[in-house]
């Protein structure tokens, strides 16, 4: 039987010190050993019993509940003031067999895998590599759990691929304390698994596009994500190049993603007729405090996997000495005018080294990111055609009303189908500023004020935008989510949540983040109705 340790705590914090936040109880569940329960599927289902016991216990105590994984989000989206559940030890995986496939599916069984919620991206990549497979994309590192990634929309810069949630085939959710509150959801238009397999892990199957795409980026509020079925692809290599190029050329590429006709080319990555190839990944680094005429850009080109490539690890980026970061933060708080100078000094450590090319697999290139002290990140999603315009606005804000101890970068992501996926534009430019956390002083504005100004500046200039769910913002900004996604989309997301969860569980799985963003409201709860497009099996 899976077991849970309960810690009575007063506070909880994220990995990057974005809290602390108040907490009453932290649950940590570990699975039964394979000596006691040898079959994976039995251990997987045994965990469901334990999670439902915890849900019942918490609900009976009139408290709320939220699961989380690696605590990598840089805000309070994963937090609940009552009870939180750490699921990092729940990491079973099961390859899908041909006999598990739905009769109408277009998926190949060899590419489908079920991962339990707490499996990290790193572990998933290792499992997939052993099958000759790879994730299609990941974030910039590998420590997030699969459930955390999809709940908050983790993305890389693969602008022809999408975000992590975009290769999810099905979701297994625990939606309450009762045996029947155990649901497998997949889109009706793209079914993956057959009823027999779905029945082996759940009590109810829902094949419904609207429900699936709402639950996909569910912000942790569609129940306890217990398992995620993903589609992998054959393992591949990425050739990574880092170059310093003319600012205008870098921005033109950002605004058009037209690598074919750009004056900038990587000689090794051109077609036989001399045009530039379209990369798998494009990222632009911007030091807004520098007047240099060039930006550092990172490009990656996808190639078939082969064994004989040079070990990329000697040039994987080294981490900064943490005490140095602490010192720089203190300097930034007290002497904000020193920030541009400090960032210039740090540039070589923060940015990838120019002209240091490498080849590696996805998990090798997007490897571990050691903890480097308290960090902040704000990330807005904009249509890629607005990239340079939005960048100028936010750089001006940061230099004129700041300075702020961070630097900008732009990454590009293909459109998601997830209802509240922030990569909602045909190609979304994720314009982000990352840096070290600072405290407000008389000389430097607060982080909250800076986040508010980002929203105001984009609104004033009529730039349509979204914000990364796992990063910093003024989430309580009036009407923010409706402004970003539109009333219909937001109402649809809420309606699907109401359809899936009982009135009690709607509140149970909501947290302060959801109330602040008005995605959950203290409104009279509506009794759930049976979804029209679902297949009930019990």
């Amino acid at each position: 039987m899976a077991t849970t340790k309960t810690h009575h705590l007063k506070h909880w914090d994220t990995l990057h010190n974005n809290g602390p936040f108040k907490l009453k109880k932290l649950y940590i569940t570990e699975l039964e050993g394979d000596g006691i329960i040898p079959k994976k599927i039995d251990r997987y289902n045994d965990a469901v019993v334990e999670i439902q016991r915890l849900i019942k216990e918490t609900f009976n105590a009139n408290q709320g509940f939220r699961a989380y994984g690696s605590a990598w989000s840089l805000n309070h989206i994963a937090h609940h003031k009552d009870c939180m559940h750490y699921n990092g030890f729940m990491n079973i995986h099961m390859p899908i067999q041909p006999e598990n496939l739905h009769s109408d599916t277009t998926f190949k069984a060899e590419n489908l895998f079920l991962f339990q919620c707490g499996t990290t991206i790193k572990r998933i990549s290792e499992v997939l590599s052993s099958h000759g497979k790879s994730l299609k994309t990941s974030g910039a590192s590998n420590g997030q759990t699969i459930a955390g990634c999809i709940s908050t929309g983790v993305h890389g810069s693969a602008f022809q691929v999408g975000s992590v949630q975009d290769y999810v085939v099905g979701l297994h959710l625990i939606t309450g304390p009762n045996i029947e509150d155990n649901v497998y959801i997949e889109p009706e238009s793209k079914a993956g698994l057959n009823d027999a397999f779905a029945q082996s892990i759940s009590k109810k199957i829902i094949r419904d596009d609207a429900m699936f795409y709402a639950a996909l980026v569910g912000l942790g509020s569609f129940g306890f994500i217990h398992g995620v079925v993903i589609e992998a692809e054959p393992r591949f290599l990425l050739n990574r190049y880092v170059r310093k190029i003319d600012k205008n050329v870098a921005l033109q590429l950002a605004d058009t993603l037209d690598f074919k006709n750009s004056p900038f080319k990587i000689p090794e990555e051109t077609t036989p007729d001399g045009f530039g190839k379209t990369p798998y990944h494009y990222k632009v680094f911007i030091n807004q405090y520098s007047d240099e005429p060039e930006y550092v850009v990172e490009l990656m080109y996808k190639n078939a996997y082969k064994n004989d490539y040079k070990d990329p690890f000697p040039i994987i980026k080294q981490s900064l000495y943490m005490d140095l970061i602490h010192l720089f933060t203190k300097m930034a708080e007290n002497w904000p005018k020193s920030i541009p100078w400090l960032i210039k000094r740090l540039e070589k450590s923060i940015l990838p080294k120019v002209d240091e090319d490498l080849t590696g697999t996805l998990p090798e290139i997007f490897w571990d990111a050691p903890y480097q002290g308290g960090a902040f990140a704000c990330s807005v999603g904009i249509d890629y055609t607005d990239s340079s315009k939005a960048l100028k606005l936010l750089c001006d804000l940061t230099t004129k009303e700041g300075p702020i101890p961070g630097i900008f970068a732009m990454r590009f992501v293909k459109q998601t189908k997830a209802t509240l996926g922030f990569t909602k534009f045909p190609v979304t430019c994720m314009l982000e500023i990352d840096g070290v956390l600072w405290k407000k002083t008389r000389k430097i504005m607060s982080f909250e004020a800076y986040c508010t100004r980002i929203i105001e500046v984009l609104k004033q200039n009529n730039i349509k935008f979204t914000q990364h769910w796992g990063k910093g913002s003024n989430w309580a900004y009036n009407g923010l989510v409706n402004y970003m996604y539109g009333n219909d989309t937001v109402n649809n997301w809420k309606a699907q949540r109401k359809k899936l969860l009982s009135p009690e569980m709607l509140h149970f799985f909501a947290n302060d983040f959801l109330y602040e963003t008005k995605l959950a409201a203290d409104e009279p709860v509506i009794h759930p109705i049976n979804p029209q497009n679902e297949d009930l099996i019990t």
Partner: protein
Amino acid sequence: MKNSIKIFTLIIISLLLSSCYSVRLRSINGAYQPDPLLSRDDYYRGMEVVELDTVIKIDVVSKDFTYLIKETEACKSGKLHTVEFKNTFGGSLLSVFSFGKKRKLKVKYVCMKPTN
């Protein structure tokens, strides 16, 4: 005379500082055993760290010493992910004056996260 004392002091401080260093080994593969309570604020934040700070005694006939890593609550897999060895001036002195029979063991290690 005063200058000589200053130079001598500087040399001693330099020796002391340079004799205190640490080396970290980290596996490329595998995930570390997590510390869900996030009880640290250093490089090891989020990792379940085991710290050893002891003196090992080696008898006359032994040539070397092997410290065994066992499965414990803080090392569920019994397999190593990261090891950091720290050498100090005191540790070096102890080894020198005991003819290698007493050795300062100042080590941090993190085990692999168990997989299911």
